[in-house]
Every structure is written in structure tokens, then in C-alpha cells.
């Protein structure tokens, strides 16, 4: 997502593989939700070997930390995102749901 003002978009359930970067958030974007995506193999190993200066990753979050929601993605490498995360997508949602049913709501302090 490029340019400030790219806000409140939803990127979910996508598969992003073998690109020079996977998903990019540039400085200044906010309110975007990146969830339940499979983002891996970005960049492909051949590209990393041939062009080591191009430091691509699966999720590159250059925005102010905490201003976007990056959650429950399958990913391996990142800047300012919770990777590696190799659980089955949706595991966190299921856990939150189970906790809520048990009266242990993770959203409550």
C-alpha cells in the first residue's frame, strides 16, 4: 500500500508467494487490516542470492507500529509484523472464540 492516505483497507485470505516483497505498508498508512493471509517465499531464494541488496520480506510494515492490524497471517519473514507465524490460519480466531466461551475474553483487560 503506497502513499499516506491509504487507510482502512482490508487484505484477507490472500495467498502471496515468490514476489520481491509479499505485502508492503509504507510510512503513513493506518487503519488497514491484514489478516488470514498466506505470505511466504518472498522474495524467492534465487532472487535473494542474485540480488542480496534487495532486502525483501513477506510482510514489510513501514508504518507507525500499532496503527494497522496485522494478525493471524501465515508468514516467515517480516519488518514490524508478527512473523514467523506458521500456525494454521484462523487458529487465533478459534482460540479467542474458545477463551470467550470460557469467560476468559482476551479483549478484556
Amino acid at each position, binding site marked *: 500500500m503506497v502513499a499516506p492516505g491509504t487507510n482502512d*483497507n482490508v487484505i484477507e485470505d*490472500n495467498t502471496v*508467494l515468490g514476489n520481491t516483497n509479499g505485502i508492503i505498508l509504507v510510512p503513513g498508512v493506518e487503519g488497514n487490516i491484514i489478516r488470514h493471509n498466506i505470505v511466504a517465499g518472498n522474495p524467492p531464494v534465487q532472487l535473494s542470492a542474485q540480488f542480496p541488496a534487495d532486502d525483501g520480506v513477506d510482510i514489510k510494515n513501514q508504518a507507525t507500529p500499532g496503527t494497522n492490524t496485522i494478525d493471524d497471517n501465515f508468514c516467515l519473514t517480516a519488518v514490524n509484523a508478527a512473523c514467523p507465524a506458521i500456525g494454521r490460519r484462523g487458529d487465533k480466531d478459534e482460540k479467542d472464540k474458545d477463551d470467550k466461551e470460557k469467560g476468559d475474553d482476551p479483549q478484556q483487560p
Partner: protein
Amino acid sequence: MSRALSALGVTAFLLALFAGTGTARANEISGTISSTLTIFEDSELVGDVTCTVVGAPCIAFGAPELKLELNGFTITGRSNALTPCPALAGEAGIAVDNQHDDVIKGPGLIQQFHQFGIRLLQSMNTVVKDVTLSSNCASGIIVIAGSDNELKGNVSVRNGSPGAPCGGI
């Protein structure tokens, strides 16, 4: 006299029916596109598309609240997937610029464009769903200064180049 009136009524009905059908009918797209095709009504691919447009989008949305269905077909740009991929400004498979509530619906493949597979520029509430983007020289899908767009269920693979390390999305 009454028979003549009746015939006139039937004719008017048929005219109204066909006029209505024409208005609702989708624009059908296939074949080679050599200058930007701007759509102003709901449209669909009825065959593979080859784009030879230089420095501009292949298909552009010209109005809000339109739907483009890819119907499992492929839109192919000018780059060669087997050689280094220079990114050239302006080239995209589909551009949604300054619109709102448009929909691009797969399944379908958008490949080998010199810049972006899909470009959303200053657009709002656009949905891109179930589309595959491959071997585009910059990004598979790029969102530039737009809000409340939804990208869901897409596959973005092997996009970008060392000179333009953008991303799948």
C-alpha cells in the same frame, strides 16, 4: 381499429423489452486490446485478452458501482515472463482510478504487465476477489491513497523485479 391498437401495443412492448435488455447487457471483452478500454457498464471477459497498450492501463473503470467479471480467462500484457522485467510507469492490467464501489471478480489471471496487475488509485470501497496476479514487473495489486477497499481470496505470485522491489500486494 382495435386490431391495429393491439398490434401497436405488442410492438411497443417488444421495443421496450429489447431496449431494456440492451441497457442491462454486459459489455463482453475478449481478443486484443491496443488502446485503453474504458468500461462504463458492467462487463465480463468472454475469452482471453492480449494487451499491447503502451504506458497506460489495458482496462480502466470509467464509472463507480461497476462489476468486471473475469470468468476464468486471462489478461496478458507485453512483458516476457522469462526475461528481466523493466517496470514502465502507467502500464497495468486493470486500473480503478478515482472511483468507488467497483468490483473485480475472479477467477481469472492477470499477468506480464510492465507495472501493476491491478491498480487502485484514490478509489474507495472497491472489491478485488479471487483474482490471480502473476509475473507483473512491479506489484500484483497496488492500493494508492484509497480507503475501505477489500482484497480477498487473491493469489499473487512472482511479481516485482530487482529494480522495482514492490510486492505481491
